[in-house]
């Protein structure tokens, strides 16, 4: 299987996916010598058929100044296994973390996967996630992007079994001159599957956000139910957002839709809150918090969602206090 192919290499081959960073020699040439490549670190989360783990598996990836990290995470859930994986990215200084993630869900397997990316502000973070879902598998994926100077998060999901349900949710909080790109390809190959994408971004200063999500419904994937929603709030004049939600559909009996909005906060709710005695700053904070929390609430685990909300609140307070 694909996992075995990946075992041999530290990273997926270009043939496997639209991953542009695999052939580093070719991509970077001389520049590659500037960062010190580190031997690939690998972590495997493997649950046997029917295994239900009560405790979440914690994975922490650190970044060190001047290093080119090549972490690899594999999550393999056999039939009907259930697990929660929480991944943290942190570090100090300037480094490049080129991550490869492989998720394979067997029939009826259920995975909650929470990824908190809080790299050093000088780091480059690229992450390619490949997800393979079989019959009746469930995935609830949440991703928070906070740190890093340049981030690219590619998620490629292939739904190979009918009845599978895939949820990809994310919050991007960006400031300064951060650039964050989320690219999703959701491939419905089997019939009767459901996919949801729900991404919200807050952009401040001169941050640049990109969201490209594509739902590709193959001819055989009848009764597909796909939905994408990407909302962005721009807090300052220099911030930029590019959104491209795509539908590519080859089956007629489907229900697919998408929606995107980009803009500032609505005046009316602001006015309402202020008429109740809240200061402008309080009102704005409250509204933006509510906007972000809606995505965070998609996480099944309350402890986790609580912690993430705290992180988001801290970020928002710092940003809004400057204004």
């Amino acid at each position, binding site marked *: 299987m694909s996992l075995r192919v990946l075992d041999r290499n530290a990273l997926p081959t270009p043939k496997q996916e639209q991953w542009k960073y695999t052939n580093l020699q070719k991509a970077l040439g001389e520049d590659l010598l500037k960062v010190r490549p580190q031997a690939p670190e690998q972590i495997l989360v493997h649950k046997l058929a029917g295994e239900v783990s009560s405790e979440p598996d914690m994975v922490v990836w650190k970044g060190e100044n001047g290093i080119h990290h090549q972490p690899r995470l594999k999550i393999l859930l056999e039939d009907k296994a259930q697990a929660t994986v929480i991944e943290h990215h942190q570090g100090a200084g300037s480094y490049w973390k080129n991550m490869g993630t492989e998720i394979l869900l067997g029939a009826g397997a259920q995975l909650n996967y929470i990824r908190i990316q809080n790299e050093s502000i000088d780091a480059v973070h690229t992450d390619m996630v490949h997800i393979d879902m079989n019959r009746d598998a469930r995935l609830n994926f949440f991703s928070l992007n906070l740190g890093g100077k340049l981030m690219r998060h590619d998620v490629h999901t292939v739904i190979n079994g009918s009845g599978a349900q895939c949820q990809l949710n994310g919050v991007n909080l960006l400031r300064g001159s951060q650039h964050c790109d989320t690219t999703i390809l959701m491939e419905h190959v089997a019939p009767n599957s459901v996919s949801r994408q729900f991404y919200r971004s807050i952009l401040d200063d001169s941050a640049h956000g990109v969201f490209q999500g594509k739902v590709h419904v193959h*001819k055989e994937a009848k009764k597909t139910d796909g939905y994408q929603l990407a909302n*962005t709030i*721009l*807090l*300052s*004049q220099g*911030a*930029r*957002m*590019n*959104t*491209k*939600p*795509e*539908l*590519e*559909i*080859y*089956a*007629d*009996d*489907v*229900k*697919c*839709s*998408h*929606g*995107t*909005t*980009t*803009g*500032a906060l609505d005046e009316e709710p602001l006015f309402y809150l202020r008429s109740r005695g809240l200061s402008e700053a309080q009102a704005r904070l409250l509204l933006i918090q509510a906007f972000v929390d809606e995505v965070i609430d998609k996480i099944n685990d309350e402890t986790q969602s609580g912690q993430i909300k705290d992180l988001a609140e801290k970020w928002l307070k710092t940003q809004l206090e400057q204004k």
Partner: protein
Amino acid sequence: MAATEETIAKVDNLSGSYKAGFITDIESEKAPKGLNEDIIRFISAKKSEPAWMLEKRLKAYRYWLGMEEPKWSKVEFPEIDYQDAYYYSAPKSMDNAPDNINDVDPKLLETYEKLGIPLREQEILAGVKNRTPVAVDAVFDSVSVATTFKEELKKYGVIFCPISEAIRDYPELIKKYMGSVVPYSDNKHACLNSAVFTDGSFVYIPEGVRCPMELSTYFRINEMNTGQFERTLIIAEKGAYVSYLEGCTAPMRDERQLHAAIVEVIAHEDAEVKYSTVQNWYPGDFNTGAGGIYNFVTKRGLCEGRNSKISWTQVETGSAITWKYPSCILKGDGSQGEFYSVAITNGCQQADTGTKMIHIGKNTKSRIISKGISAGRSENTYRGIVKVLAGADNAKNFTVCDSLLIGEECGAHTVPYVESRNHTATLGHEATTSKISEEQLFYCMQRGISEEEATALIVNGFAREVLQHLPMEFAVEAQKLVAISLEGSVG
């Protein structure tokens, strides 16, 4: 009920699919086959153009030679052999450019009558009785055959004439505006048009004038192996208003034919231009996809002045391949752009169409409503961009694009780009793709409506939001087309 019966009756009436597929047997004068600088000189001489126009053409041609074909769209076709076509073809009888409609070859008039477009003014007036007539510029292959109500319009200061005439008579306007919205270097198809364009319409509405009648141009390709390269330029001065419509058809032939047009619209302060298209080029053979027109069109409007408005409405039913993105550059503060589109593909057709809304001025607004219907083995793509530049404070956009799939072998794709660089701008986009729901069909059928009737009813309802933006006369026409285009896809 009445509406459904009407639709069904229309389909029955017009069954036999493509109604405009006949050939007019007429002697033509053609430029030699192929494309080179001599051909361009030939076209320019035929049109008795001033030297500066020829220079412009040659400049475009030389640039074109080094250009790449746009490949980003989701359409597939074999490489076009640009040397294997005629770039100029005109009925011989048009050689002396008859001034009077009575001198025009009756065969030509007959052609247009057959298509439902009388060109004699008395007949038009007789036909419409109490309503305002529509002024028509009829373009046949590479020449304009007749332009109706020219004198009547002149009384209001409105200029409505073939573009070749405008180049001779109004050089200052042409020099100022032609190429100002779509430069010759824009894309390969537009560049080719800039080099070899033949006819099309020129419209000038002076300050404060509301054009007293609808203007329209009817394009007909007749000759085999010819390309049609029309050029339309519409200028609305301060406070002016005009509603313009174009229609197009071609005979059924087994060879592919190229149609590469440019339409430029300029709206000054407080002016409004409403541009409607009912595109019904020959779509090619239903089963094999042989023949048909390549419709590669660059349409762009510039809202130059404050509070100006440009609105594009299109009903795209024909053509083997449609590649077309009518756009608005919203430069003036408070200007508005609108795009309403119904694109129907059936058989082996491919369509990649949408719009571009570029917000530059403050308080600019745009609205996009796109309905795509794909049936048979066709591919239908909506591709559009909404771009808000940093200075476009309070810009607003609202986009809806819905797709309907009929049958198991077609594809429907939605590719919207939304780019915002201004934090006070509000952009909203939503899209859906679905088939005609079982529930809707079931509801209609349990009320005694047959499946075919029910489908027609639902599709017309699906497209209504767009069709209602067409001028009255054409809305009826368009509804008919919607029904005919879907023929053979139901059941």
